[in-house]
């Protein structure tokens, strides 16, 4: 279609009477931004803009107003309700999430606490069993007055319990450390404890090689413990 041919069609295009194929060509041409055709289309639209005057004017039935306004009111209400539901759902989701997180943290805390209690319970059971077993042997450090006192209960299963009293004070950066002192060689770490009011009861965390242990000693060490004594042991309990 030539440019001139299109100019003859704009009024028909504006009227809506043009064939789809021709309309497609015109629209493609308009999209190219041809100023002359843009102007032609404006003029054509100006002609057809007054066409409603060709028809008659009829009063709508009175109930139509209520129907139209009612439908919009329902739309407005449903939209508002939808938003309210969305807000409530969002708030509920947030609350549920917060509750879940709290519950998860509480559960995790509870589980940690339970594991700690179970461990403590097991430790006490072993401790009681060891202390009440008639086959348990005891060893004690020499008792000087006012000197720290150490006593060791040796079980048949090679576990031991250290009971200390008049222990020296330690600060927050320190701990007591048990040592297995062999007849020959370097002491081996056997566990950490802090005690309370200069007293302490410490169960060995696992069976140890008591057979090759000549003494059990306690020294003050940094809070994280040491692989070898860094201070002179203040209690030495000979096992023989």
């Amino acid at each position: 279609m030539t440019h001139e041919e299109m100019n003859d069609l704009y009024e028909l295009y504006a009227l809506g009477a043009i064939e789809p194929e021709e309309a497609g060509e015109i629209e493609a041409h308009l999209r190219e931004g041809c100023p002359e055709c843009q102007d032609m289309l404006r003029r054509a639209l100006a002609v057809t803009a007054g066409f409603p005057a060709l028809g008659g004017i009829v009063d709508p039935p009175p109930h139509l107003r209520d129907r139209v306004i009612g439908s919009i009111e329902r739309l407005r209400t449903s939209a508002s309700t939808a938003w309210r539901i969305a807000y409530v759902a969002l708030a509920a989701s947030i609350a549920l999430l917060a509750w879940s997180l709290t519950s998860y943290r509480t559960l995790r805390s509870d589980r940690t606490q339970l594991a700690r209690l179970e461990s403590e319970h097991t430790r006490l059971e072993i401790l009681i069993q060891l202390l009440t077993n008639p086959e348990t042997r005891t060893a004690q450090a020499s008792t000087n007055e006012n000197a720290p006192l150490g006593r060791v209960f040796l079980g048949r299963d090679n576990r031991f319990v250290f009971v200390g009293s008049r222990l020296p004070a330690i600060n927050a950066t320190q701990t007591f450390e048990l040592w297995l002192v062999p007849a020959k060689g370097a002491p081996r770490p056997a566990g950490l404890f802090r005690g309370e009011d200069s007293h302490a009861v410490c169960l060995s965390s696992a069976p140890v090689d008591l057979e090759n242990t000549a003494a059990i000693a306690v020294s003050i060490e940094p809070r994280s413990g040491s692989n070898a004594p860094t201070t002179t042991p203040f209690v030495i309990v000979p096992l023989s």
Partner: protein
Amino acid sequence: MLSVILAAVLSPDDPDLIARLKEKNHEAIGEVYDRYGKLAYSVTLRITRNQQTAEDLVQEVFLRVWNRAHKFDSSRGSLGMWILCIARNVAIDHLRSTATRIARRQSTETDLEKLCFHDDFVSRISIMQQMKAVRAAAANLNANQRSVLELAYFEGLTHSEIAERLNQPLGTIKTWVRTALISIRSEMTQAASR
């Protein structure tokens, strides 16, 4: 008849009304209906020729106005012309969807709304002139010319469909449409010069 159209379309757009409409003010849509409901009903009834259908379509027209008010740009045309375009569009779409005629390009409402708001062609004074001119010109049109314009405008028929409807050669239909448009354009030119 024309006075009703002019009164509706020429009523100055109340900026406050448009603002409230865009803000989804419930009372605003009632005022818009009071101002343009008769026009929308008349156009949809003229196109569908069915009262019940026209009522359904008027409801759809104002739902569209409500949902699309935020897109309305008063600097590009009047609210009345916008609503008229929507009314014509929904009614013609209804005809097309129910008549299951030959496949043809579906002119979307967006297309028609764009046509109605093309650049600066719509101004209230020009619409008044246009409607007066169309009415004056229509009085001078013969029955065939008036018929083809109405079939095209109110029923959205193409040349070919009008030819088929009126059982006339396509060339004849084109001639009737062309001469009718020339007559109206001539009347408009005279109106503009007065």
